Structure formats: structure tokens, C-alpha cells
């Protein structure tokens, strides 16, 4: 028996969310007294054996050109075969774009109950109950999984990565892959920036900034903090900022360690995408702005004065000129 962790890569590198999934999966394995194993599909440049320090003992590597891009059906075929060979009773995904494409398919394939968006370790004291976010982070639900095999898709940033000691045994796995039905014809990436959904720190701004020409100070602050930038919906709708920065109910849902909201009122639909952030800082000139109710720290003031000063103060702290 084992806990099987599905490890995602992008451009040959293991995703940060997968390190969280491995740490989490290793803990689940410990709880159940079984081994933690991993599976990686497609070619990888990173040192897989080194992932052992997050607690995984053995990694099944399935290399095939057909697996270098995501075809949910092929991936499901392969993961199902590995799961069977490894005697997996719990399968862990990260609830990121790949996990959302794969976990539901695998759930049907294996008739294994799925909890997507898990935020804590399972409670195995009476059955198998996993806590997940519901109502866009405004509440949680405890979901009982009632099948012999269980699938958990862990929310990114919900479980802290812990690196210890250890080396994983990496073994090639010969799987029947099949023929892809989805062909990837092109890929575009926002280059060089911190990926919003993975960022530890996010600097976000709203309509209070008046126009796209004023985003320089936001980008400067983000650079100092090695943060991703985000925005409210009207800002994306007005094309002040790209759509892939829009957070909230209808945009991305994020859960960074630190979310800095500048000139954003804090409408409930905005909060739905950011209220899982660990620490929220609000900078707004209106003391009545609803965002202050959801904030940990706040400054009532003019963003155009506060943000540049804040940037300088953080630079000073970090010792950068």
C-alpha cells in the first residue's frame, strides 16, 4: 500500500505546488503507516532523487514524448497504471491547473472519491475526512471520502513545504500511454515574472490608482518584494492591466503569505479571490473602505504618497539600495 503523489513539472522543472503536495503526501503516508511514492510524467531536468528530502521514498518516472504536454486522457491512463502497481490507496494532486484537469478524470476511472481544494491533512480518526474550502474561501467543509481509494487535490499555498533529509529512488515505469487526442499548437508565457497563483507575496491595485500610467510604483514595490502583481476586475476590464492579473470571484483565487491591496475598495467579489491570504495589508484613502474589515494591517492614506515611501522602507529593511 502507498500514498501516491502526482508531481507536476513545467518546462522540465518541478512546480513549487508539487513540493507542497509531496510534503503533504509524505505526512499522510506517515499517518497511515504506508510508503510515500511519487509519479512524474514526461521529461524532467530537475534532480528527482533530491525530492526525497520532502519525504517521498520512490518516484516512478514515465518518460514518453506523448507525455511532454498535458492530454488529460493519456495522463489519466498512466497515473491509473502507476497507482495500481504501487497499490495506492490515497492519491495526491496539487489543485492547480494540471490537478484540475486530471484529478476528476482519475476519480471516475478508479471510482475513487475526490476532495478538491483540500487545505489540511485528512482526519483518519473516524473514517477519512478532509477539510476543503467552499463558498470561495468564505467557509470550509469537511468531506468524508467513502471509497477504498481516495484522491485529494491540495490547494496551492495551503500546506507548508518542509525539506529534511533523504534521497528518493527513481525508477522508470513502462506504461501503456495511448495516442493523444489533444494537440498543443502554441504556448505563451508571461516571461520573467513571478507567477501569480504561486507567488508568496502579491501586490495588487485597483481603480483608486486612476489610470494605467500610475502602475510604475506598484511594479517597483512588487520588484522589491519579489512579488507578483494583481488587480481588481474593473482595472482588467478597462484594459489598464492584463486579464491574467485579475483576482476575485471571477478571476484568479490566490492564497499568498502577504497580499497588499492598494486603492481597492474590498468588494465581496474581490475578497472571494484573496481572503485566504495569510496577511492582508490595505492602503486606501477612505477609512470606511470595506477592505479594512478583512485586513490585518492598514494605512489610511493617499496611495501616491504611501506606496513609494513603503517601497523605500522595505528596500532599507532588505538592505538594497
Amino acid at each position, binding site marked *: 500500500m502507498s500514498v501516491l503523489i502526482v508531481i507536476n513539472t513545467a518546462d522540465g522543472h518541478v512546480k513549487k505546488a508539487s513540493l507542497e503536495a509531496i510534503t503533504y503526501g509524505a505526512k499522510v503516508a506517515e499517518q497511515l503507516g504506508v510508503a510515500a511514492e511519487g509519479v512524474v510524467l514526461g521529461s524532467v531536468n530537475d534532480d528527482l532523487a533530491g525530492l526525497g528530502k520532502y519525504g517521498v521514498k520512490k518516484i516512478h518516472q514515465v518518460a514518453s514524448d506523448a507525455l511532454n504536454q498535458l492530454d488529460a486522457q493519456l495522463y489519466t491512463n498512466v497515473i491509473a497504471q502507476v497507482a495500481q502497481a504501487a497499490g495506492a490507496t490515497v492519491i495526491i494532486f496539487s489543485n492547480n491547473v494540471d490537478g484540475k484537469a*486530471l484529478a476528476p478524470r482519475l476519480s471516475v476511472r478508479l471510482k475513487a472519491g475526490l476532495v478538491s481544494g483540500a487545505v489540511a491533512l485528512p482526519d483518519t480518526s473516524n473514517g477519512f475526512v478532509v477539510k476543503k474550502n467552499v463558498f470561495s474561501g468564505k467557509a470550509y*467543509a469537511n468531506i468524508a471520502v467513502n471509497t477504498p481509494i481516495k484522491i485529494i487535490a491540495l490547494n496551492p499555498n495551503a500546506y507548508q513545504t518542509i525539506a529534511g533529509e533523504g534521497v528518493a529512488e527513481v525508477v522508470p515505469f513502462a506504461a501503456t500511454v495511448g495516442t493523444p487526442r489533444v494537440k498543443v499548437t502554441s504556448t505563451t508565457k508571461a516571461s520573467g515574472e513571478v507567477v501569480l497563483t504561486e507567488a508568496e507575496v502579491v501586490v495588487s491595485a485597483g481603480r483608486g490608482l486612476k489610470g494605467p500610467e500610475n502602475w510604475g510604483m506598484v511594479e517597483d514595490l512588487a520588484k522589491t518584494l519579489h512579488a507578483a502583481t494583481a488587480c481588481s476586475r474593473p482595472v482588467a476590464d478597462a484594459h489598464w492591466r492584463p486579464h491574467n492579473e485579475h483576482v476575485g470571484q471571477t478571476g484568479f483565487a490566490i492564497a499568498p503569505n502577504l497580499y497588499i491591496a492598494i486603492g481597492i475598495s474590498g468588494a465581496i467579489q474581490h475578497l472571494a479571490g484573496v481572503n485566504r491570504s495569510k496577511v492582508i495589508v490595505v492602503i486606501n484613502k477612505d477609512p470606511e473602505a470595506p477592505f479594512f474589515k478583512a485586513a490585518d*494591517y492598514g494605512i489610511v492614506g493617499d496611495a501616491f504618497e504611501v506606496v513609494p515611501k513603503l517601497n523605500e522602507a522595505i528596500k532599507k529593511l532588505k538592505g538594497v539600495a
Partner: protein
Amino acid sequence: MKILVCISKTPDTTAKIAFTDNNTKFDVNGVQWIINPYDEWYALVRAIELKEADASTVIHLVTVGAADAEPIIRKALALGGDEAIRVNADNHDSYYIAAQIADVAKNGGYDLVLTGKETIDYNGSSIGGMVAEMLDMPYVSLATKLELAGTAATITREIEGGEEVNEVSLPVVVSTQKGMAEARIPNMRGIMAARTKPLKVVEPIAVDALTSVAGFGLPPAKAGVKLVPADNVDELVRLLHEEAKAI
């Protein structure tokens, strides 16, 4: 072209979230229900646009829900579906709902099955993938664009930090999100027409759910905001560094 759009009913985005029956049920008291925004704005409106581009297109809507889902499905019909199917079942897990949708889709000869990215109450982001697996169809998730040319679909989907263009032959299941279409509001003509459009009620097939809700809870309330004077950003930096350990 035959399109099936999956429509679910969710509490209005501003609804108060509370629970009853020893925290095992969502408190529906005073809650306004809406069409799940992703289903309405993106899946349904994109289907309507495809019909506007090719008048021979037929749009069916499916919802798995009790009779109280009917106002929602009528509103969806008013926006533009041709007919609706309600599977008369309530309160089950994603697998159960997906099995009902797959059963409706199985004999419908649909070229395209569209879902929203996720329901804003359960946040599963699961049903599209489950339906695709049950129907042995390809699944493109979190799509931001969808174009059709004959039996070929060109679909742009979100990837971490970017986008990817996929080509796939119909039929296909697609989960949709922002970018796909612009929200519309129903007009009087649509509302009148919806009254006479067929809304078929079918009984669910027998399926065992794989999961169940053991209970709900609310996250601990925030301690309250600590305000720092605007002329003392150093203090904010100190708090973030020393107290919150966030920078």
C-alpha cells in the same frame, strides 16, 4: 452543431454564509439564488454566440437539481438556450451529479459539452472532467477561448503563468472561464420566449455518491485591522517583518 451547457444554481455572491442542523446544512434562509456566474457568463453566452454564428446550432441546458432550480433554468433559457433538461435530484456529490449529466449527454449526440470553471459554492472544478471521463471524451479545462471550424475545435486554456492553444476534434468537454465571452442580460423577448421553451424533467439514474459532507464551518474571524499612520510606513514595515513575519 449540438451543444449541451451545464447550468448550476448557486447562492448570490453577496449571500450571507451560515449553516444549520449542527453545521451540516447550508442555511438557505433569505438567500437569493443565481445561475453560477461561470456557467452563465462564459459557458452559456459562448454557446449563444456560436448559435448566432451558425443558426443551425441547437443549445440544450442541463441542471441537476430539485424543483427550486427552475427559476434559474428559465433565466438561462431567457438568455438563449433552446430547451432544458432538469434531472430531479438534489444534494449529492460531484460524482453523482456528473453521472446524471453524462447520462443525459450519452444519447444526445452533443458535439460540445460546456461547463463553468467551478461552482462558486462547492468550488469543485471537477464536474467537467468527470463527465468527460464518463463519456470517454477529451477534456480541455479552464478555457478562455473556443473557436470551431467544422469538426475541429481550437481552444485556448490557462496554464500556470500563461496560456496554451489546443486543437481537438469534436466531441469535447470544455470548462470555461473569463475571456470566453462577455456577460449579457436577458431581454424582454427572451424572457417571453423562455416561458414556452420546453423544460423536461427526468428522474435520476441510480448512482452511489463517493463522498459526503460531514460538516461545515466558518474560518476564524480576523482579529481586526491594525492601523498605522500614513506618515509612519517604517512602523508598518517593522510589523510586517517582526510581528507578521511576512517580509
